[in-house]
Structure formats: structure tokens, C-alpha cells
């Protein structure tokens, strides 16, 4: 819902700007709603006119080199609207965003070429920045011009004015383009960041920003006003020479409490007050610091913990204070030296909140025993002890329980802890928690039913205020994702699903960051351990080692280290070295994400669309036509949700037919790619419609989030989409397309859209672009949202109706989508900032089921059963038909159960082995089959019983919860149907059956062991029973194979079986169950 609001507000803004020109204030979300009606019409009007104008620019672009045009276009759009926006600040932001959009649109392609945006960014940052600045200057001039033009023209006729503006801008831009183009070519590799930076630079508005570092020094720099949190965070990490940065974050003071800066959002939207002051802190405490790759990371963790301990946040006993203090001394001072370390050398340090002489003596005593430990070793010892502290890594939040008793909620790696005073009175491990939500100042967790209970229970806590509740909820979402998931969760699928925040953790998970850090290949960086002396660190000239000289030279004008530091001391590797080092690190990430997630998910979405039936198409059309109404009426439509789902839906299985399409698409020219997004966009549009009313209630970040999650991968995915889209639109007469539902969709839509809806449809291109942009932005970390908006606006204006039939149409539908998506992002972000979101939901288990890193045996067992349900409802897996390696997103779950009955003949074993082979083959076959289809596995060779159970199709209805309070109006009819298909293939030997029949044995012992490797989690359940005097040992292994596409599941399965045999040579395998679950979200069926 938020989304819509945002979009609406944008629209309004445009209208207003056009009409009245300057001084408007940014409408509240509510205000925007009211305005919607009014604003809507003007927009529509504008749109029709706009097409001609809009098209012209594009055509020009196309004529030129794609790369060139892109670059140029980027620059151009922002200027137009920026004029106003700058002056008016927030109100105008929306406008600004829209403009940039166009530019952005083309970015994705460029980036694609670049392949590794981040690396490129890093490497080229300096040079590019310089260029950017130059550009900025140029642009500044442009701005002025544009302003004048726009203002003058705008007033007469809204519609006309817009078009005119666009045209003029373009003209101006073109001139510059040529100049710039040259520059660009030299640096083709520009990354999104740079681009973003450029835009930023254009504005020339920077905000001074200070970051308190862990060593007590201060890092300051000037940030572009619209910079995202990530920009700052990356700067700080670079300054610190920190590569394993996913454990850290930036805190800012918000009212009385500190909140984490969301890297994916603009800083200014999160931090209301100037100046910008942040604290660099550990956000996710690594449960086992020894697994960190670099000493420097451990060092910063130590610094954090010393703060935590000295402040009392991390309580420890006297003895532990002394011990940890002694390691601190050893790390900072080296071996105890009676001469150098006089009696009071220690009193300068603060080891504990209440430090006593006795404690100091103890510290000294222990310090003497550490002789010979290197600083790094001392740090490691420090961490080994600190990590055992019960409150290590526990983020405490004050709350009251249902009876009003003061308690604290502690969020940690393992789950949620409930404290009353210092006593732990309850604990909810992540696997136990089905859903986390908040509503106003209440925070709820929905807990899995206990063993004998049938019903889930929801436990509510009262937080001091709404912000606190939301903050807690966010922290929970982040912690769960970071520690428990293999990769970040996609943003919520449907808005109706969630009334409220769509916030999701978008960074890397622990698993990912660990993997990434294994690739760090640089010599251990030198760093100065600064003193943690109690006496004002800065004053006494304690070394402040953090001056990064590189920084200074580069972007760096901004960077300066305040504080009494000894500048010379901080010696980081020189810039080049760093960068080189970095690149490897990031590269892996990119691969990881890109191939695995991003590509897959988005692709799937498209694919599904193609498969849609006529009904779907009709629906879409309807939805489109309704879009208009929605805009007018702001009545939420249910259908969009489904669309959203699809979008979000991770890879689903691809039909072979689809594959074909894909291939064709690939062949299509690159240019087309941009347009491809159309499909997605359309979906988005629909969503918007639905959201419009609800937006306020719910902030849906989801589009944003989704992208963010994929961020890096996005490019890939985007390109793919593009390809598809291009196919559809491209050449092609709709008939061609007819094979794919899409084409039809487009056709039908096109007419509709063009007519009245045109406005709504606006920039199809932009939508695609928007998506791309979003992703890009994330990478760039500059205000993505703004850009997106801009695009949407531009798109509308520019898109000429029907000039190029195929393309145009595409564009239009896309546009709709874009606008919603954009708006959603904006709105959501804004709402989040404003804390408007009353509600938020998060269901840890959807993903958990498969993506979760399993540690808890008991829960695993439970999960096994529940998995089906969960998966059915939400997890979409693609094991099978994924033709392209890249496509398979992440997780394939295969469950292998072996029931080993002792006392079986060896001969059987061999047979079983044979079976296994067969099974493997079967499995493969299965995989190739399409989701829903029942696969018969016949194994003739052996006397085994094969059960193929049809995948149960679970249709889930989403229940919309309307906030009772005010938003009664919003009714969600949507019934999203999620189809999940589950295949279970059971191979079992006949023997077991007999045994199974009368199993009245006496249970002797039962034991469960869980082990994990990179891609598999094995849970072994051993039961010993006595039946009729014969003891039987049954070993049931449940092996969850999780991995990206490039993991050969069959092989993994075979390996697992093989290992099982090897481990228990005296037993035989009697039963193998392969359980594959695939979720496909398709409405029609």
C-alpha cells in the first residue's frame, strides 16, 4: 500500500509542479491520497501527449550507441525536475526520482556489460569521480536552463508543459551527451554507484557526516544528500580496511533509541536531524569469532566487545572482567614489562563499569601470564572467552509481557530470549517461531505448537511505543535472516499478505559472508591497535590509526579524520593493493548471488507469465483497465497480489516449452532487453492498483526489497528478462506471440492501455528500467528510489503511443508496473521513515524450511513434517527443469531416508545398491519432469516398492487483515493461490513392509545426530527396538541437500547414500525416499 501512496504522491507532485511550478510541500501520504483523484486526471492527460515527445528521445538514443545514449539519458532526466525538488527538498524528491528514472533505464544494460559492477566501481571510483565532478559542473548549467524552461512552460498546460520539458531537456542533453559519451566510453565500466554519485554530484548538495568508529576516533566525510546508507557504510569500511563487513552496521540516534541505518535506503529518509552522526558498530556478533578470516575483523569485534563490557551492556563476572582485561593489555601493550609497566599503568584502562583496585590487580596478575601472546592471539583469546558470555550478541529490548510485567526481549543468533530482570524466563529458537509481527506498539511471535499441542500460539509483548516495536521486529527479521538462512529472503510476495512493512534484510547472510570471506586473498593488513585507555582517548594523543590516505586522494576530499590522531600511524595497504584484494572477494559474491538467486527468480517470473492461460491474460487486462479506476478510486484489487507473488516468486520450475522461449529470447538484440521487463511491470501495475488504498496501511517495500536481495545478481536476471520481453514485443506481431500467453496480453493490453490507461501505463520501458535501476541503485547505493520514480515519470511522458507498435505497447504496460513499483518503494521507504507502518509481518519459516541452516535436531524432525505444508504455502523450488545453470536458485531439498534393519543379508545390500542406482536415475528423470505431473517410477529390476505420491496442491488463501482502526475501507478480496507441488518417491525393499506391518517392538534407545557440510545437512535418527526377541537398529537419515544450480543433486544424493552405506557396512538400506518439493505459483490452476 505504501507503494501506491508513494506513486500517487509522485503523480500529484508532478501535476502540481507542472501546474503551479514551485513551492509545494511534500504531501503526506494521507494527503497524497486525497489528492490522488485530482492528480490522476492530469496525469492521464499528459500521457497521451507525452508519447510523441517521449519517444523522440528514445529513438535518438537508439540511433546512437546504446551505451552512449544510456549515459546521456541518465544525466539528462534528473535535471529537469530537480530544480524544484532541490529547493523544496523532500516534497520534490518524488519528482526528482522520476526524472532520473529514464536515465536509469538504460543503465542496466550497461552494467550488464560490466558484469561486475561492484568491482568496477571500486576500481574506477577515483577516476570516475573526477569525471563525475566535471560532469556535474556541466550539468549544473543544464539545470539552470531546464529550470527556466520547465517553469515557464509548465504553467500553460500541464500536459504540454511536460512534453516540452522533456524535449528540451533532451536537446540539451544531446549536446552534452556527445561530450560525455566520449568520456564514458573511456570508462565503459562505470558502475551504478558512480552513476549515482554523478547524479549526486550534480546536485552538489552534500551533507557533512560523522561516524564514530570503534576505536573512539571519528570519521567524517561529506555525503551526497541522497546517498544511501550503503554508500556511507562502504566508505567507512574502506576507511577501516575492513572486508568482512557484513557483521557490522551503522547506528544512528533516533529519539531516545538507536536504530540501524538501512543500507538500502537513503540516509536522509532515515535520519531526520542534522548533522548526520553515526556509530559504527557490530551488528551481528559472530557466534564463533575464530571463524572470521581476518585478524582485523576480530580486532574490530574486540573493540566492540570492550565497549560493551566497559559500558555494562555485556555483563561479566569479576573474574571474567579481569581475564578479558588482561588480554586487552596483552594485545595493546604486549608482554608485561615490570619496568615499563609501572604500578598504575593499568588504571588508564577501563575494563569494567565498576572497576576496582582489586580488579586491576587481578588484571595485572593475569597479564603477566600471557607472555608471548601476539596481539592477534590475545584478541583471539579475548574473543574465545567473550563469546561464551551468556549475553554475547544478545540485543536487548525493553518490553512488557501480556500482564504488564517488565521484561526484556533479547534477539540473538539462535532466536528470541525473554528475560525478566536478569533471568531467562523463556526462549524461542528461530525454528520454533512461525511468524514475527508487530502492530502498533505490540510485538507478536507465533510459535510452533509444542509436541502435544495442536495449535500454534501467538505471544504478544508490549513495547514502549510503535517505533520500538518496529525496531524490534526489524532486528528479528535481520537476525533470523543473517543467522538462519542461506540467502536473504525475498520480500513479501503479496501486500495483502502483509499489512505493513515489507522490510527484509537485504545484506549477506552469515553463510554468504563466510563463503565470501574464504575468498579473501590478501596479505593480512597491517593495522594499529589503538589504546582503549580510559582517559580521553582523543586528547592524550592516543593513536588514531584510521586515516586512510587513499580516501583522501580519491573521493576523498570529503574524508577527514577528526581527532587527535597520529596520522601516520594508521597505515593501510595502499589503495591499489586494496582494490586488487577486494575484487576477488566481491567477485565470488556476485557469482553467488547472481547466478543463484537473482537470475533465477526473475526469470521464473517471466516464464510463468508466458505460460499463463487466457484467463490470466484476461485478468491482466481487466486489471489494467481497472488500473485507471484504481487510480481514480483507489480501490484495492486482489489480483495484483498474485502478480506480485509471481514476480517475487523464486524460481519455479520451468517448462521445457518455456525454455524454448528463453532461448529465442536470448538471441534477441540487447537493446530489446530494456523493454523486456514489461511483463514484470505489468504485474507491478496491478499490484499498485490493489495497493492504492492499502498502501498507507501497509508499507510494501517488497519490490524494493526483492531487488535489494538480488542486488548484485539482478543484472543478470534483468538482462534475461529483457531478452524475453524483447521477444514478445519486439518483432512481433501478436500472433507470433500467441504461442505464449504474454503476447496476447500485450496485444490486448496495448489498446486498453493506450487509451485512457495510457497514463497509467506510462512508461513501460521505465518500468523495466526501474527494476533494473533499483537493483543498480542498490549497488550504487545512491538513492535508488528517487531514480525509480523519475523513470516512471519520464516513461509516461516519453512513451509515444503506438509509434512503434510493438515496443510502445510494451512500454506502456511496463510503465504501469514501474510506477507502482517505484511508488511502492518510495512510499514504503518514506513510511518506514515516518514510522507510519503500524504493522509488519515476517514468517521465518517459509524460507527456513529449505534455506535454513539447520542446527536443531528436534526441530528438524518437526520440520520434516511441516515442511510440506510450509513449502506448499510458500517455498518455491526448482530442482528440475532448470535448463540453465544459473537458473536454479538455491535450494533443493532432497530427503533421503534410510531404514537400516540389522541382520539383513549382505546379498540384499548389493541389491539395494543396485536399487539406489536406479533410484538415482529415476530421480533425474523426475527432475526433468514438470512440476505438477505425476511421475511414475518403475523399478523393475528389484522387488522394491515404489510409491509415487502425487504432489499435493495446496491452495492457500491469503487472509487480509484490515486494521480495525481506520482503514476499514480497504478490503482485500484477493485470494492468492499458491500451488506447491511435492513429489515423494519412495523406494523400499519388500522386507521392510513386512516389518512395518507389525511393529510393536519395544523402544530401547533413540538418538538423533545432526551433521552439516557445505551443501548437505544430515540428520540421523537411530532407534533401537526389540521385536520378538530380535533387536533391530534402525537408522533413519534425513539428508537435506541444499545448493545452487551448479550442485549436482543426483550426485549429492548418491554420495549421501554411499556414505550411509560406508558408515554402516553391516546394515542394509531398505528404503529411500526422495522428497522433492517445488512450489509453483500459478493462478489459473
Amino acid at each position, binding site marked *: 500500500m505504501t507503494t501506491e501512496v508513494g506513486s500517487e504522491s509522485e503523480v500529484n507532485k508532478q501535476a502540481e509542479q507542472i501546474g503551479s511550478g514551485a513551492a509545494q510541500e511534500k504531501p503526506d501520504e494521507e494527503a497524497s491520497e486525497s489528492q490522488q483523484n485530482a492528480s490522476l486526471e492530469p496525469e492521464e492527460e499528459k500521457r497521451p501527449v507525452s508519447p510523441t515527445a517521449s519517444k523522440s528521445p528514445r529513438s535518438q538514443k537508439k540511433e546512437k550507441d546504446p551505451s552512449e545514449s544510456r549515459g546521456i539519458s541518465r544525466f539528462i532526466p534528473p535535471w529537469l525536475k530537480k530544480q524544484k525538488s532541490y529547493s523544496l527538498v523532500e516534497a520534490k524528491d518524488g519528482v526528482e526520482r522520476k526524472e532520473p528514472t529514464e536515465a536509469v533505464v538504460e543503465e542496466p544494460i550497461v552494467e550488464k556489460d560490466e558484469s561486475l559492477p561492484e568491482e568496477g566501481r571500486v576500481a574506477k571510483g577515483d577516476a570516475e569521480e573526477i569525471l563525475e565532478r566535471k560532469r556535474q559542473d556541466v550539468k549544473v548549467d543544464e539545470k539552470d536552463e531546464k529550470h527556466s524552461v520547465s517553469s515557464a512552460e509548465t504553467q500553460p498546460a500541464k500536459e504540454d508543459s511536460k512534453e516540452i520539458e522533456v524535449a528540451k531537456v533532451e536537446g540539451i542533453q544531446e549536446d552534452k551527451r556527445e561530450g560525455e559519451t566520449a568520456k564514458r566510453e573511456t570508462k565503459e565500466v562505470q558502475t551504478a554507484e558512480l552513476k549515482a554519485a554523478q547524479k549526486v554530484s550534480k546536485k552538489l548538495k552534500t551533507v557533512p557526516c560523522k561516524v564514530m568508529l570503534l576505536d573512539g576516533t571519528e570519521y567524517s566525510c561529506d555525503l551526497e544528500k541522497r546517498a544511501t546508507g550503503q554508500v556511507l557504510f562502504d566508505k567507512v569500511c574502506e576507511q577501516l580496511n575492513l572486508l568482512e563487513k557484513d557483521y557490522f552496521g551503522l547506528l544512528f540516534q533516533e529519539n531516545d533509541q538507536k536504530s540501524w541505518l538501512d543500507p538500502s535506503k537513503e540516509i536522509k529518509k532515515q535520519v531526520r536531524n542534522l548533522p548526520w552522526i553515526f556509530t559504527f558498530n557490530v551488528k551481528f556478533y559472530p557466534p564463533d569469532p575464530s571463524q572470521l578470516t581476518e585478524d582485523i575483523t576480530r580486532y574490530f569485534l574486540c573493540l566492540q566487545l570492550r565497549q560493551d563490557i566497559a559500558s555494562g551492556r555485556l*555483563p*561479566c*563476572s*569479576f*573474574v*571474567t572482567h579481569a*581475564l578479558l582485561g588482561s588480554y586487552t593489555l596483552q594485545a595493546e601493550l604486549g608482554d608485561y614489562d615490570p619496568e615499563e609497566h609501572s604500578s598504575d599503568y593499568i588504571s588508564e584502562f577501563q575494563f569494567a563499569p565498576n572497576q576496582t583496585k582489586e580488579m586491576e590487580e587481578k588484571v595485572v*596478575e*593475569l597479564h603477566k*601470564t600471557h607472555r608471548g601472546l601476539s596481539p592477534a592471539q590475545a584478541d583471539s583469546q579475548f574473543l574465545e*572467552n567473550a563469546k*561464551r*558470555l*551468556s*549475553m554475547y550478541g544478545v540485543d536487548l529490548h525493553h518490553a512488557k509481557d501480556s500482564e504488564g510485567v517488565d521484561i526484556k526481549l533479547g534477539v*540473538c543468533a*539462535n532466536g528470541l530470549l525473554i528475560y*525478566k*530482570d*536478569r*533471568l*531467562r*524466563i*523463556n*526462549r524461542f*529458537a528461530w525454528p*520454533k517461531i512461525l511468524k514475527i509481527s508487530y502492530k502498533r506498539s505490540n510485538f507478536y511471535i507465533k510459535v510452533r505448537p509444542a*509436541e502435544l499441542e495442536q495449535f500454534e500460539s501467538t505471544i504478544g509483548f508490549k513495547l514502549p511505543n510503535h517505533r520500538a516495536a518496529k525496531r524490534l521486529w526489524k532486528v528479528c527479521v535481520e537476525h533470523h535472516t543473517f543467522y538462519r538462512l542461506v540467502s536473504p529472503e525475498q520480500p513479501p510476495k503479496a501486500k495483502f499478505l502483509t499489512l505493513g512493512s515489507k522490510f527484509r534484510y537485504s545484506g549477506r547472510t552469515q553463510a554468504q559472508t563466510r563463503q565470501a570471506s574464504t575468498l579473501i586473498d590478501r596479505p593480512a593488513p597491517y593495522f594499529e591497535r589503538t589504546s582503549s585507555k580510559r582517559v580521553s582517548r582523543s586528547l592524550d594523543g592516543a593513536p588514531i590509526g584510521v586515516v586512510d590516505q587513499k580516501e583522501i586522494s580519491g573521493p576523498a576530499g570529503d574524508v577527514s579524520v577528526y581527532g587527535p590522531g597520529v596520522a601516520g600511524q594508521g597505515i593501510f595497504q595502499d589503495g591499489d593493493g586494496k582494490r586488487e584484494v577486494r575484487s576477488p572477494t566481491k567477485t565470488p559474491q556476485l557469482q553467488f548471488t547472481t547466478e543463484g538467486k537473482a537470475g533465477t527468480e526473475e526469470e521464473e517470473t517471466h516464464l510463468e507469465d508466458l505460460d499463463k492461460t487466457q484467463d490470466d491474460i484476461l485478468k491482466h487486462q481487466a486489471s489494467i483497465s481497472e488500473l485507471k479506476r484504481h487510480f481514480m478510486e483507489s480501490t484495492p484489487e486482489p489480483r495484483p497480489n498474485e502478480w506480485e507473488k509471481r514476480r517475487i516468486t523464486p524460481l519455479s520450475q520451468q517448462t521445457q516449452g518455456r525454455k524454448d522461449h528463453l532461448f529465442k529470447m536470448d538471441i534477441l538484440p540487447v537493446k530489446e532487453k530494456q523493454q523486456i521487463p514489461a511483463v514484470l511491470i505489468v504485474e507491478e501495475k496491478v499490484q499498485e492498483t490493489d495497493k492504492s488504498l492499502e498502501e498507507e496501511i501497509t508499507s510494501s517495500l517488497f519490490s524494493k526489497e526483492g531487488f535489494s536481495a538480488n542486488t548484485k545478481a539482478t543484472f543478470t536476471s534483468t538482462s534475461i528478462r529483457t531478452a524475453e520481453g524483447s521477444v514478445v514485443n519486439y518483432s512481433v506481431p501478436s500472433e507470433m506471440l500467441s504461442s505464449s500467453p504474454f503476447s496476447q496480453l500485450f496485444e490486448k493490453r496495448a489498446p486498453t492501455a493506450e487509451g485512457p490507461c495510457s497514463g497509467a501505463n506510462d512508461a513501460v520501458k521505465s518500468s523495466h528500467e526501474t527494476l533494473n535501476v533499483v537493483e543498480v541503485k542498490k549497488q550504487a547505493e545512491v538513492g535508488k528510489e528517487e531514480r525509480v520514480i523519475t523513470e516512471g515519470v519520464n516513461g509516461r511522458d516519453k512513451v509515444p503511443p503506438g509509434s512503434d507498435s510493438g515496443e510502445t505497447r510494451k512500454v506502456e504496460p511496463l510503465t504501469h508496473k514501474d510506477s507502482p513499483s517505484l511508488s511502492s518503494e518510495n512510499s514504503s521507504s518514506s513510511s518506514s521513515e515516518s514510522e507510519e507502518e503500524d504493522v509488519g509481518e515476517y514468517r521465518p519459516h517459509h524460507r527456513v524450511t529449505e534455506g535454513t541452516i539447520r542446527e*536443531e*535436531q*528436534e526441530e528438524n524432525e518437526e520440520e520434516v513434517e511441516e515442511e510440506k505444508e510450509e513449502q506448499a504455502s510458500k517455498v518455491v523450488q526448482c530442482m528440475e527443469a532448470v535448463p540453465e545453470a544459473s537458473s536454479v536458485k538455491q535450494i533443493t531439498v532432497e530427503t533421503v531416508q534410510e531404514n537400516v534393519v540389522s541382520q539383513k543379508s549382505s546379498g540384499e545390500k548389493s541389491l539395494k545398491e543396485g536399487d539406489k542406482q536406479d533410484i538415482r536415475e529415476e530421480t533425474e528423470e523426475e527432475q526433468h519432469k514438470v512440476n505438477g505431473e505425476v511421475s511414475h517410477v518403475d523399478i523393475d529390476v528389484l522387488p522394491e516398492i515404489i510409491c509415487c505420491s502425487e504432489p499435493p496442491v495446496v491452495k492457500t488463501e491469503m487472509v487480509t487483515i484490515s486494521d480495525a482502526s481506520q482503514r476499514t475501507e480497504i478490503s482485500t478480496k484477493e485470494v492468492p493461490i499458491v500451488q506447491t507441488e511435492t513429489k515423494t518417491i519412495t523406494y523400499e525393499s519388500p522386507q521392510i513392509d513386512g516389518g512395518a506391518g507389525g511393529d510393536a517392538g519395544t523402544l530401547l534407545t533413540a538418538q538423533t545426530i545432526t551433521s552439516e557440510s557445505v551443501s548437505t545437512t544430515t540428520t540421523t535418527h537411530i532407534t533401537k527396538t526389540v521385536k520378538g526377541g530380535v533387536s533391530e537398529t534402525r537408522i533413519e537419515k534425513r539428508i537435506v541437500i541444499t545448493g545452487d544450480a551448479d550442485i549436482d543433486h543426483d550426485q549429492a544424493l548418491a554420495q549421501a547414500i554411499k556414505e550411509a552405506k560406508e558408515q554402516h557396512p553391516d546394515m542394509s538400506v531398505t528404503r529411500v525416499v526422495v522428497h522433492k518439493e517445488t512450489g509453483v505459483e500459478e493462478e489459473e490452476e
Partner: protein
Amino acid sequence: MAALGHLSTFGRVTHAVVRGLPESLCQHALRRHKGDEVDFARAEREHQLYVGVLKNKLGLQVVELPADESLPDCVFVEDVAVVCEETALLTRPGAVSRRKEVDMMKGTLENLQLNIVEMTDENATLDGGDVLFTGREFFVGLSKRTNQRGAEILADTFKDYAVSTVPVSDTLHLKSFCSMAGPNLIAIGSSEPAQKALKIMQQMSDHRYDKLTVPDDVAANCVYLNIPNKGHVLLHRAPEEYPESAKVFEKLKDHMLIPVTNTELEKVDGLLTCSSILINKKVDL
């Protein structure tokens, strides 16, 4: 010096504090159920054997405190102090009649140069029998003898560790049906209350404990020690008393098993852990 919960050091014991039995125990010791009268002579003999195991067989430095006839329950020293590493928390026993038992214990522990923390809050009660230290964390039974405030003070005293509370309603103490039988190994009785308490403990803990389930709740109270050169040592109830439970203990192949008879003190709710305070004084820093 390894401070925090290293499993390898769990159960390390150098010293033990025990106390003699007063004759008043037979008539005046607190007991939950009226039952057979305590055979004092036999009780004393059993206790001597118990102390003998600690002192002679395991080589601990055993501090033997004299009995006090005015304190019929004074033999159960466990309840009056909780010692973890270098710190001793002197409790405020839930039974008023036992509060004075603390005095002598205080002097004794001071002599052992432990950091002494006293529970002075008059709203707090805590019996050591309700405190289960696993090596990684504390579980405190909230029973008739131990209240929330007592548990809080314990948590304040041993800040390094998580302290979780477990409701105990059907037995005297938390350790009336459980104890540590090894590092990471909880011995637990089979009764419903015992199993329920175990579930709670499992839910409250970030760690995963192995469990050793024995048929008899009281037999689940055993004494685990980690003695240099002897390794895992477990004092458990004798097969004559609880044969089925003894069989379970006998499956512990890595443990040096020492069956100990405790029939008489059990009549007044005394179990194996109740009669000693085990202390690990680190001579080697």
C-alpha cells in the same frame, strides 16, 4: 586460566566441603513425607562412606564441618552455598530453620579464598538444591524453597552465565530428579514432572545437552567429577537401591562408576549431591 565454561574443565574438583550429621536429624529434619524413621547409625555409616569416596578414592581435600544439633538439616551443605569457579554465593535457604547453616559455611569458604557473595535480600530465598549448573549455564528451580528473587541474585552473582528458571512443583528441589552426569550430559528421571522440567530446560538453552534418562527420579541425582588421572567419575545410587537406574549408569563406558548407598538420608529428602559442596581451586594459574 580459562574462565568460562570450558567443557574440558567441567567437573574439575579439588576440594569438597561436607558436614556431619546431627542426631536431631532423625526427628527434626525437614521432610516432605512422613515415612520410615531414619536409622541414624546407618545414616552415619553411609555418610562416612560417601565422604570416604571423595577423600580417599578421589583424593579431594575434604573439609569436614562438625554437626550442629540445633541444625538438623545441616548435613545438606549443598543448599547453603553455590560455588562456581572462584565465586561462592551464600544462599538464603528457603527453610527458615536452615538459615543459620550458612554461618559456618561462610567462614569455611572464606578460608578457601573464594569470592564470597551473600544473599542479604530478605525477599530472596534460594536452596542450592535448586541450582543446576551445567558448565554452560544455570538452571534454577523455582520451588517452595527458591523464589524468583533468589534466582535473580544468583544471576547477578554469576554474570557470565545464562540463568534460566524452571518451575518445580512436585518435588523438593530441581535436583530432586536431575543432575549432571558428565559434561553436557544431564541425568534425568522418568517421571512426568522430571521430563517436563527437562523439556523446559531444553527449550531455554542455546545448547544441546545429551540426556541420560533413568527410571527413578531420585537416582537421577548423581555426582559427577572430573578427576585428573581418573577422568570421568560418577557417584550414583547403588544397584541395591535402584537396580534399573543403576543399569543405565552402567552403560556409561567412559565413566568411572562408584555406586553409593544413600537410603537413610533419602528418607529426609537427602540425595547424593546434597551432602557436599564441590570446589575447584585452581592452584595452577
